[in-house]
């Protein structure tokens, strides 16, 4: 069986890439090792309820018609009507540090006035930051090599404001510890503070169903329970070196890696599929591990991302509003200094995200309350636990999470009608991301190239994260290959 393109993973980037390839008339199949699609942002049924596995907020909210913003661009490229998502906007969100709060919403005026109130001397510096922020035409996910912390420290006199601005951005997209690249900062700042949060009616499931429907309508094939065991690479002819566009990457690979061209994949059940192109959303480290070892040598830094999370989900009979909370998300930190890093303990209860799907202006009222609390977690420490301790520690971490929620937002202790938790091991098991690294490797590959002809990366390790980011990643990488192909194929 020969395909024009195979895609590893039916997460958002794989689905975005798949729709585009099918639109271009390619014979394409998405290979997903799980029984459901969605990847990091999927859904599951437990205790008679349907949960979103990841969804806090769809970032990058833009109203209908704003076509140059990422949301507008992906909807247009995928031919999906904005109305079909039934987006409800957030009420307000906040960054809360001891004794100080900055609220923000989808209207920048709120954050502006909050900064003027809490940091009156910084209002002008904030305006200059807005004016100097790189625009999307410059933001391709590549790294600028500049530290966002250093950049902000040079702009603001109040270190506390710098910490407070970084806090939500790190939680919703920081792949490395302690800092963000200036490019990544700009992308996340736009996604969170300038565009904002929304929730699709019904959560992520209807969005995923819509994407799968579009994909199939364009003729794409989706195979579940079809884990890829190996990527087949043909060794030899050094074609990468002949082509100008590939020279940069070819140089990277001169240091010990063999050149090659992708031939297809072998599935876990032994089935072999041939293809001209393979797009992998499994992650950079994980994709290399599927390739023959001679191709994985000498390709630069390949350690998995250092950051993973613990999350507790608590269902209550009453809605958060009745419990005194009408916000959407609270990014908290219990000291003036924000430490975004893998904790020494199982979880770090000093900082995290508290959020609820209940307070969006959504067309679909929820019947119960749901509180989600996210904390930084240490994958290796969770991994070292024996099964009994693992269960006990999950319960203990959930208590820490709810105590933090009580302090920084609202208190559901004693009110839970249902509770679930997940750890870095859960994330690793369900998405295959090594170390449970939600935002992938600290080193991104913005052009999606791998050094192996015909094998491209999409998704988290290409550089764009989040729901909108992952879709954009799949679309952009496929478009680029299509443009390159259009030149040579005819």
């Amino acid at each position, binding site marked *: 069986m020969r395909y024009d393109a195979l895609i590893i993973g039916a997460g958002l980037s794989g689905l975005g890439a798949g729709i585009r390839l099918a*639109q*271009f*008339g390619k014979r394409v199949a998405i290979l997903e090792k799980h029984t459901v699609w969605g990847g990091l942002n999927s859904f599951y049924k437990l205790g008679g309820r349907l949960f979103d596995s990841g969804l806090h907020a769809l970032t990058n909210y833009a109203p209908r018609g704003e*076509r140059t913003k990422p949301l507008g661009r992906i909807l247009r*490229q995928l*031919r999906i009507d904005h109305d079909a998502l039934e987006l409800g906007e957030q009420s307000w969100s906040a960054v809360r540090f001891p004794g100080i709060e900055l609220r923000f919403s989808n209207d920048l005026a709120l954050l502006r006035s909050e900064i003027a109130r809490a940091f009156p001397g910084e209002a002008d510096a904030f305006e200059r930051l807005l004016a100097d922020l790189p625009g999307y035409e410059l933001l391709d996910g590549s790294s600028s090599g500049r530290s966002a912390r250093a950049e902000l420290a040079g702009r603001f006199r109040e270190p506390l404001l710098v910490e407070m601005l970084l806090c939500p951005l790190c939680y919703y997209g920081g792949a490395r510890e302690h800092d963000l690249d200036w490019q990544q900062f700009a992308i996340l700042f736009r996604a969170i503070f300038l565009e904002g949060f929304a929730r699709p009616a019904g959560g992520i499931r209807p969005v995923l169903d819509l994407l799968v429907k579009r994909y199939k309508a364009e003729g794409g094939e989706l195979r579940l329970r079809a884990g890829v065991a190996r990527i087949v690479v043909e060794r030899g002819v050094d074609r990468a070196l002949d082509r100008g566009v590939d020279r940069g990457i070819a140089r990277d690979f001169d240091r010990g890696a063999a050149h090659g061209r992708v031939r297809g994949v072998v599935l876990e059940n032994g089935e072999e599929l041939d293809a001209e192109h393979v797009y992998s959303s499994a992650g950079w480290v994980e994709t290399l591990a599927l390739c023959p070892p001679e191709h994985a040598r000498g390709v630069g830094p390949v350690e998995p991302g250092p950051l993973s999370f613990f999350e507790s989900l608590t269902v209550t009979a009453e809605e958060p509003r009745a419990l005194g909370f009408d916000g959407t998300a609270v990014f908290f930190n219990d000291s003036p200094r924000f430490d975004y890093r893998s904790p020494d303990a199982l979880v770090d209860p000093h900082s995290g995200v508290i959020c609820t799907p209940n307070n969006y202006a959504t067309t679909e009222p929820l019947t119960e309350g749901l509180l989600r609390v996210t904390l930084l977690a240490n994958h290796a420490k969770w991994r070292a636990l024996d099964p009994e301790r693992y269960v006990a520690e999950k319960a203990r971490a959930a208590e820490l999470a709810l105590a933090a929620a009580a302090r920084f937002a609202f208190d559901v202790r004693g009110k839970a009608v249902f509770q679930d938790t997940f750890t870095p091991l859960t994330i690793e098991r369900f998405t295959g991301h090594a170390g449970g690294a939600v935002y992938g490797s600290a080193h991104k590959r913005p052009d999606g190239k791998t050094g192996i002809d015909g094998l491209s990366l999409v998704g988290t390790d290409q550089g764009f994260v989040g729901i909108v980011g992952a879709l954009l990643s799949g679309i952009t990488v496929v478009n680029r290959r299509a*443009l390159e192909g*259009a*030149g040579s194929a*005819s």
Partner: protein
Amino acid sequence: MTNDEIVLAIKDIIATIAPDEELAHLKMDVRLREQIELDSMDFLDIVMELRKRYGVQVPEQDYLELATLDGCVKYLGPKLADKQLKLASRA
């Protein structure tokens, strides 16, 4: 297809790609990008639709020929001469 039909065909493709755009008043001799919001990715989609609907291949080095409606008629005329107009947009 006649020249008028080619213009209809292109407008219909643009209407599919960019359903919010007002296309009735497009000028023939002004670059499309100056009249409506189209980026290079949208041109990729126009080319894709031409191939899907009419089996016409447009190599990347020829994309510039499609910059104006006049250009489209001139470039696509011979390629579409024996093809039937197919309208697909919701408009």
